[in-house]
């Protein structure tokens, strides 16, 4: 490990550390533009000049280009280096329009900072400034090329890091231009990061344009709750509105970046127009009421029901977007008050897969996204990373950039922004393909792997022989055999119930074969891990509740941050069931159909207003601090909230868990129960975490050493025979347009595309369909119309349809959905 001296202070750093990073460890931030830890060094801007006084290099050099070595003595304050940097910044500022007063970057601009740090203040060059024509880059990013200093960060991020190919460096010399071939929306769903990564104001966030100044913002470390990864964000609030989301660095989770769904999908919290207006006033029987009266009448209504029919006539439901606080409170209430539930899952298969994934994931095989980047082979089985957990696709790309082969086994026509080999297979074959792939590589399993491993191995072998391997498979088996750090990424959306456990078995077996094998699950939502911890394998699902309501066993339903109408596959039936209820009590921040129909509604606060915990899909605690909350002074300044309302100042709404606590009249010793008390009471794993702020913002991973091989994977259901003439309809997630956040955030509208149904080429030919046709698909509960997308990359015998907001798919009645070819009609 090299030891060097920087500005008269000694430091020892790992081999390969650049001098610029070594200095940073000492707290010395050397000016820079082009250097970024995630992108590496290119030496393009010359801003990071320092003087090497002793050691293998002498004189002024770029600190981002030189590896720290033993015996180096470096000065950042040497006159020659200081002057060099001053000249560089003067040159870079030569064409700058000096429009900081109207630039959204102002106040958080590296160019401003470095101009000051370089000591440049007076323009000496009398010639004209070079100017550019800006481009239209879509709904999210504003382009102002005159501010560019040609550091290449944007194009390196966009093309190299993310793998998209429609933005890059054009022209030459002083005409250098960063943009697209022609005006048009950026194709990358990671484009929002350009705002963070450009050191100047070339790319700014259009959704926040001209609304704010950095120094006026309230900022808090937050967490994205739009998918199960739980990326770290900074929420920026102003006058009680969320103005902008930025990426927050987290080494293990998202690194420096975010996806566009997570970055721009916050407008629901500010309330939209018309039907998307955020419900801020409590309602009793459709009439606005005060918060105390809404809570009191909910409490009364529930007490009445409990007295009349017993407590089991009350059922409680949460969802995978509820925070752990709400989920735990629901669980605690059900335990103490003997209510039915809590129910977090909509169908048994979703419950089975999520619970299995959570049980299987143990600390010996779980990997983080950072470890995926370092994998030397990645197998994606039954997962669509780009749509289910977008940032995971970027992690896979980083592995691919280091030449890791990427294999995907899935029914959907997957896309990843890197080279990969796709095996399109129906859900029931995913395990077979995984077996074929892994079988070869585990031949050399350690001497005595144990009885369970041997048994799993035998089954794996048998399964791998069930179908003939496709040609390309053999090569990948060889690569897997040779790999050292393979990672299996397994999804829980289109897979069979046994698949998560099967994937875990494969990872364990690879581990027995002396590999540092890893396992990474994708779960349905940010709250999925928590809800699985709180639900047993036998817990009720929402489907069971509907039956109970129909039978008249359940008379009141309390739903917290949950909209069954969004998820339940039989809209008409749910409508009937709900109308039978004596009470539907909804606590939410979305103006959902459930909220519309609620007999008593209480408006919950969002993640931006409440401290919320999520456990991400690798078992890591993610805590989001509130960025603005009722009662807190607006800092700085004394401006009233933007939105005028009848609310008493400081009397803003409670987080769902506090409201729940009140309507269930939970016993409390001293006012409000604290999460650090009640979470451990239902989740013992939390008891070790201590009191106070119960865990650091970027918390630890809550995983046990591991159950070893389980036999859950062997509980494979009956499959329809090979010759069955019908299709299986797979409902899937899209990055934009399927989530509740997308449904209620007008800021995401611009990114939502028309839904389409993917079908395999051969199937399409048999059905007489071609790409672009519109079809009507007849379901048990009615028909929907959709455009067809034909691809060889879609598995045969499946129809892949997004749970899209523009598609009323909630007519399918139940899962799994089988559709006869005759039910698809061209229109």
């Amino acid at each position, binding site marked *: 490990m090299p030891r060097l001296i920087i500005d008269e202070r000694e430091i020892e750093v790992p081999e390969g550390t650049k001098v610029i990073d070594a200095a940073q460890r000492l707290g010395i931030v050397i000016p820079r533009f082009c250097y970024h830890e995630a992108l590496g060094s290119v030496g393009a801007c010359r801003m990071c000049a320092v003087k090497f006084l002793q050691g293998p290099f002498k004189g002024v050099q770029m600190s981002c280009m030189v590896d720290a070595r033993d015996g180096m003595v470096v000065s950042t304050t040497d006159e020659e280096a200081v002057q060099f940097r001053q000249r560089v910044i003067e040159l870079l500022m030569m064409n700058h329009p000096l429009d900081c007063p109207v630039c959204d970057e102002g106040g958080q601009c590296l160019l401003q900072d470095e101009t000051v740090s370089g000591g440049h203040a007076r323009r000496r060059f009398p010639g004209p400034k070079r100017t550019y024509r800006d481009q239209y880059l879509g709904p999210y990013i504003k382009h102002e090329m005159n501010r560019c200093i040609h550091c290449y960060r944007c194009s390196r991020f966009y093309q190299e890091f993310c793998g998209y*190919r429609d*933005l*890059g460096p054009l*022209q*030459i010399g002083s005409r250098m231009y960063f943009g*697209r*071939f*022609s005006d048009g929306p950026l194709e990358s769903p990671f484009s929002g990061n350009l705002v963070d990564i450009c050191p100047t104001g070339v790319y700014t966030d259009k959704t926040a344009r001209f609304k704010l100044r950095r120094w006026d913002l309230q900022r808090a470390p937050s967490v994205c709750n739009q998918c199960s990864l739980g990326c770290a964000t900074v929420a920026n609030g102003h006058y009680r509105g969320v103005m902008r989301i930025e990426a927050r660095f987290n080494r293990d989770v998202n690194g420096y970046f975010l996806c566009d769904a997570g970055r721009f999908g916050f407008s629901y919290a500010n309330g939209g127009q018309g039907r998307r207006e955020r419900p801020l006033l409590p309602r009793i029987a459709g009439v606005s009421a005060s918060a105390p009266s809404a809570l009191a009448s909910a409490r009364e209504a529930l007490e009445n029901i409990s007295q009349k029919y017993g407590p089991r006539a009350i059922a409680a439901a949460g969802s995978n977007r509820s925070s752990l606080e709400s989920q735990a409170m629901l669980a605690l209430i059900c335990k103490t008050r003997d209510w039915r539930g809590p129910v977090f899952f909509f169908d048994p298969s979703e419950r089975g897969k999520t619970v299995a994934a959570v049980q299987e994931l143990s600390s010996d095989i779980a990997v983080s996204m950072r470890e995926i980047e370092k994998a030397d082979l990645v197998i994606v089985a039954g997962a669509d990373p780009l749509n289910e957990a977008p940032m995971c696709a970027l992690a896979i790309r980083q592995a691919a950039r280091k030449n890791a082969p990427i294999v995907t086994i899935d029914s959907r026509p997957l896309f990843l922004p890197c080279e990969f080999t796709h095996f399109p297979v129906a859900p029931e074959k995913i395990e077979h393909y995984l077996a074929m792939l892994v079988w070869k590589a585990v031949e050399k399993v350690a001497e005595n792997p144990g009885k369970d491993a041997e048994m799993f191995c035998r089954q794996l072998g048998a399964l791998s022989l069930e179908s003939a391997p496709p040609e390309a498979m053999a090569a990948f088996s060889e690569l897997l055999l040779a790999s050292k750090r393979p990672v299996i990424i397994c999804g829980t959306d289109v897979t069979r119930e046994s698949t998560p456990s099967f994937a875990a078995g494969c990872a364990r077996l690879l581990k027995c074969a002396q590999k540092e094998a890893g396992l990474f699950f994708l779960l349905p939502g940010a709250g999925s891990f928590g809800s699985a911890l709180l639900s047993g394998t036998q817990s009720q699902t929402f489907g069971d509740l509907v039956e109970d309501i129909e039978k008249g066993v359940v008379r009141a339903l309390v739903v917290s941050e949950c909209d069954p109408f969004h998820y339940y596959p039989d809209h008409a039936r749910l409508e009937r069931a709900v109308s039978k209820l004596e009470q539907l009590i909804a606590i939410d921040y979305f103006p959902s159909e459930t909220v519309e129909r609620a007999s008593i509604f209480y408006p919950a606060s969002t993640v931006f207003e409440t401290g919320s915990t999520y456990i991400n899909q690798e078992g890591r605690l993610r805590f989001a601090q509130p960025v603005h909350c009722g009662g807190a002074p607006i800092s700085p300044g004394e401006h009233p909230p933007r939105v005028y309302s009848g609310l008493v100042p400081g009397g803003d709404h409670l987080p769902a868990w506090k409201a729940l606590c009140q309507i269930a009249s939970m016993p409390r010793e001293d006012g409000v129960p604290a999460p650090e008390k009640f979470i451990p009471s239902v989740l013992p794993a939390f008891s070790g975490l201590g009191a106070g702020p119960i865990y650091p913002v970027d918390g630890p991973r809550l995983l046990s050493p591991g159950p070893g091989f389980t036999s859950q994977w062997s509980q494979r259901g009956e499959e329809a025979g090979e010759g069955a003439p019908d299709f299986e309809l797979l409902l899937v997630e899209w990055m934009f347009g399927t989530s509740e956040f997308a449904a209620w955030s007008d800021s995401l509208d611009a990114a939502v595309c028309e839904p389409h149904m993917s079908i395999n080429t051969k199937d399409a030919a048999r059905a007489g369909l071609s790409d672009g046709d519109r079809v009507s698909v007849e379901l048990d509960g009615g028909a929907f119309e959709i455009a067809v997308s034909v691809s060889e990359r879609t598995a045969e015998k499946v129809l892949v349809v997004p749970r899209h907001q523009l598609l009323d798919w909630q007519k399918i009645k139940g899962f799994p959905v089988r559709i006869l070819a005759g039910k698809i009609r061209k229109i």
Partner: protein
Amino acid sequence: MLPDELKVKLREVIAAAESPREKAIDVMFEIQELQGWMSDQAMVEAAELLGMTPLELEELATFYDYIYRSPVGKYVIKVCDSTVCWLEGRRRVVDYIASRLAIPMGGTSADGLFTLLPVCCIGYCDRAPAMVINKRVFGNLTPEKIDRILSQLAKNADFSGSE
């Protein structure tokens, strides 16, 4: 639209290469040979043949001085714009050509024959000031010499339509 015969030829050129994009410049030259410049449409079609995105091809096209993204005259006069030529009166050369053809720097003469552009050092420093016209280099430029060259070219163009 690129003519079909040209496309066939370009496909062959590309197929012979180890990786398609190494032929990007050759493909653009072929197209320019025929059409004089690279139109947006030509860029999009060429990119498709090469398996590149239009942006990736544009990165190359706009990097090089010899690929034209707007229409140019039959003869592209590129006057050296580097140090030695500056010292040796490059300004006068440019002014002279500009006034003779009645075009500004970057312009194309009304008859569509000449376009005037700057270029960086072309290695004729010992014969500065210098210029290149299409693929020929001329040094030691004087007004008389420029007159001679330009009239000759104009005359040739009248005859055959080719050099």
